[in-house]
């Protein structure tokens, strides 16, 4: 069996920067494509990376997204220094959003980001502290 070594890279995400939003997610997709990861896994990673990244852009002030690839799994760690989430259960509900009118005009704020992350991940973990920020850990099995 072909044995890949573990790979790790960290990307910065700037809150409010809608112009460059998506670039970290695109880079992650490109890396996984270069490594030769299965197309369906790349599709699921791309969806979750983009949704998590956009939540930092919209609600997170500033943050980072870390990509970890091992022979067994792909892990995304996203953390931000934003306002945090008051009620995670409510935030996870399809359709729930606190996006501004301006964001919704741009097609954001469908309230489907967190539900779609959960749906596409093999494992999903979210922790948040009001006034401090939010951490997501998203895992995909590679086989």
């Amino acid at each position: 069996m072909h044995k890949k070594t573990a790979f790790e890279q960290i990307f910065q995400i700037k809150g409010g920067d809608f112009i460059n939003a998506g670039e970290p997610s695109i880079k992650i997709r490109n890396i996984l494509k270069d490594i030769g990861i299965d197309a369906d896994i790349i599709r699921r990673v791309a969806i979750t990376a983009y949704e998590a990244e956009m939540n930092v852009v919209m609600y997170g002030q500033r943050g980072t997204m870390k990509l970890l690839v091992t022979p067994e799994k792909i892990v995304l760690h996203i953390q931000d220094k934003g306002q945090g989430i008051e009620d995670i259960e409510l935030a996870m509900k399809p359709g729930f959003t606190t996006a501004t009118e301006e964001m919704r005009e741009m097609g954001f704020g469908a309230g489907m980001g967190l539900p779609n992350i959960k749906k596409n991940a093999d494992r999903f973990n979210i922790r948040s502290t009001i006034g401090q920020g939010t951490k997501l850990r998203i895992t995909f099995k590679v086989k």
Partner: protein
Amino acid sequence: MKNKDIKISNIIESCNLKVVCCQELSGRGIEGGYASDLLSDVMANTKAGDIWVTLQGHPNIVAVAKLKELAGIIIVNGRTPEEETLNKAKAENIIILTSNLPAFELIGRLYESGISGMR
């Protein structure tokens, strides 16, 4: 028969589209179609090779098209994309087309040209 060997260049002609970025990509094949203005919906529900019909013209549509490996983007209702959208499209190799028609009308013509949303 639907979705058979249709290229962007075919619909440029049959649907009277204007290429606002990356004419050189008009040889790309189209596998299907999807219409939505909600980015999470497009992220979740498009398939690679879909042509995406939308009202949105801001730079984020390029990242969505790139991440989902869409065939291209058609912006309807005579809207023109922002300058920054075109810069991003060039950098990421995404073809962007515009139509003066409203979405309903354009999608009908795409369907007549042989593109289906179901596959």
